[in-house]
């Protein structure tokens, strides 16, 4: 089963659909560009995100998680497929639906879960919460909660990589910045300013629209012009727009996105990529989803990216049912353990209220410190007597 495809008018010259190899997997052949080991790795990552989110929802019901919490289930192929196409030091930045990107970028699920639980061991010491996954070492520049806020920031990340390479020469290679945004975020002015800036400054940044059909209860068609071809917004900024229709297929996402990344790395020109996907759950934990039909949900559920890849691998003889079960059980155990550890972890010390407000010490402010996630094992701390720097 494939997502419904809305044929985009292909008239202009400066946008292209990335060549799809769309029927290979459906025929039971796994694409040759990726070996079975890689595909199993992606399957594992998608399973990890799914299981993480299942347990996050439970924890939310049990009031271990608070605030606004946005579940990534259904969209796994986007984060896993695109991030797999990047180099480790390519900066990425996203919105508040960010658990999947953090995990796909390799954040230890424990630090991610601890953040959701508001614990000191969280990636942001419990100060950020669900919408603010940051990992400096993994080049993840956040989780951002204001719709569209990450888009101008992305141009800044890209500007800096270019500046480092070309002006101050502290970097010897081109890094491609990837900025994820929702279909709803397209309607923020900041996004359009960011696109134009990226265009006039020739910044190596790729804006990835995760088009999951809705911005809260507003369908794309109700909120945005060119609703069936969002990637064409690129034209007005003189950049190339790409459409990846099969956003529920991690292999397609990866292969098609990789071409764009390679091109951007070569040319240092920005791109816009629309990826069609679906969020299986509500917008946030309190959304009854009355704006979409059961039939529509069913249709998309049948395109579950995890089922998709596991079936293909099994059909191709690269994975056995038993192996798949074992993988699932392992991940369940891993996340169960993460939940247990996170729920036993300490909340941030009260002193932490005044840490990280400023870099220095003055008045009530107590400088800044790194989260345990970025410290070596023997530097980790739960107390408040950390040295400030």
């Amino acid at each position, binding site marked *: 089963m494939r997502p419904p495809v809305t044929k985009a008018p292909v008239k202009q010259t400066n946008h292209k659909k990335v060549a799809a190899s769309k029927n290979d997997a459906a025929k039971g052949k796994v694409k040759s560009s990726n070996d079975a080991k890689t595909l199993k790795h992606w399957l594992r990552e998608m399973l990890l995100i799914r299981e993480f989110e299942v347990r996050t929802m439970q924890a939310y019901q049990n009031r271990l998680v*608070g*605030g*606004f919490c946005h579940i990534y289930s259904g969209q796994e192929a986007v984060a896993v497929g695109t991030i797999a196409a990047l180099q480790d030091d390519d900066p990425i930045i996203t919105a508040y639906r960010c658990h999947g990107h953090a995990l796909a970028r390799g954040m230890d699920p424990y630090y991610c879960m601890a*953040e959701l639980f*508001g*614990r000191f061991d969280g990636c*942001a010491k*419990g*100060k*950020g*919460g669900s*919408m*603010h996954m940051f990992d400096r070492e993994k080049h993840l520049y956040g989780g*951002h*909660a*204001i*719709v*569209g*806020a990450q888009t101008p920031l992305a141009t800044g990340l890209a500007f800096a990589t270019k500046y480092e390479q070309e002006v101050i020469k502290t970097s010897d290679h081109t890094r491609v910045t990837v900025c994820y945004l929702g279909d*709803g*975020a397209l*309607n*923020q*002015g*900041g996004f359009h300013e960011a696109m134009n800036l990226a265009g006039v400054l020739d910044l190596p940044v790729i804006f990835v629209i995760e088009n999951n059909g809705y*911005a*809260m*209860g*507003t369908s794309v068609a*109700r*909120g*945005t012009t060119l609703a069936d071809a969002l990637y064409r917004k690129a034209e007005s900024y003189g950049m190339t727009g790409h459409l990846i229709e099969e956003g529920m297929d991690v292999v397609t996402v990866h292969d098609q996105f990789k071409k764009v990344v390679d091109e951007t790395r070569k040319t240092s020109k920005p791109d816009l990529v629309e990826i069609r996907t679906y969020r299986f759950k509500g917008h946030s934990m309190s959304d009854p989803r*009355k*704006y979409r039909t059961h039939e529509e949900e069913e249709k998309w559920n049948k395109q579950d990216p995890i089922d998709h890849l596991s079936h293909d691998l099994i059909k191709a003889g690269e994975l056995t049912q038993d192996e798949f079960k074992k993988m699932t059980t392992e991940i369940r155990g891993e996340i169960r353990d993460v939940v247990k550890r996170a729920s036993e972890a300490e*909340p*941030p010390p*009260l002193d*932490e*209220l*005044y840490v990280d*407000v400023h870099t220095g010490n003055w008045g*009530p402010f107590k400088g800044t410190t790194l989260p345990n996630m970025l410290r070596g094992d023997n530097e980790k701390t739960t107390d408040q007597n950390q040295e400030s720097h």
Partner: protein
Amino acid sequence: MAREIEFRDALREAMTEEMHRDERVFLMGEEVAQYNGAYKVSRGMLEEFGAERIIDTPISETGFSGLGIGAAMMGLRPIIEFMSWSFSLVSADQVLNNAPKMLYMSGGQFGVPIVFRGNDGAGGQLGSTHSWCVESMFANVPGLKMIIPAFPDDAKGLLKSAIRDDDPVFCLESERLLSLKGEVPEEEYLTPIGEARVRRTGNDCTIVAFGRPVHFALEAATELAKSGIECDVIDGRSIRPLDMDTIATSVRKTNACVVVDQSWPFASIASEISAQVQECCFDDLDNHVHRVNNDDVPAPYATNLEQAMLPHAGKVIEAVRSATYNL
């Protein structure tokens, strides 16, 4: 006759009554129509008034707040809902430049009779970007009016006045109060903008609060009464104009003043009131004006940190004890 209704229903009644009364009034914002409002304030309004007057927007705050201002310059009376005032920051230029200054800039030619309304203040672990209390920052701007109801009856009466007002009015609602029930008269009434209300009387200390913190003040006053400290609790209701008369009258009686303000302390509503009280009641004060604010840090996510940061009854009690030398 009065009946008990929720704060959110009081807001809705204000809007529907005014929309029936005046065809120029319309409601626009994210998810206000088909979704019935992100917080169900506009529930049923789409059916009642149709899609021409209850209008869903894309996530384009700059666009739709500016649209509202333009429509108001043409004589319409828009109600623009921000899902949260936190999101109004992306449209700061429209909201803080155009709405409040148009009349002045145009030499009196173009007024902007608009209402901006939405959730203000910490909602519960929403983190740094989503917990804005915009009152202090926005109240700094001349040309706007600002109302901040704490009870359903005032929510309705103030919002009705705001919709009829010829100036831009910012209505700050607390998500935490939307389900609060209270008595609201059946018959039509307006609550005047710029008049505080004394919610409780006492001779020992004046507590001034706005919006949700009024409830902390009342809780504190009840608790303090047990140890014989009686407080005047003033529900400010409007921030601009500010009813200094009511505050000063009370301070002249109690000789002590505590201001409870959910925004940051620096250059805040509380600092403004302190300054004004010190100007008009200098000789009446037995102590400096005490302020209870959010801590001077961005809102953290973790519950324990957030609780420590926000104002609450305990902090008000402590401040009153200190202000009245009852430590």
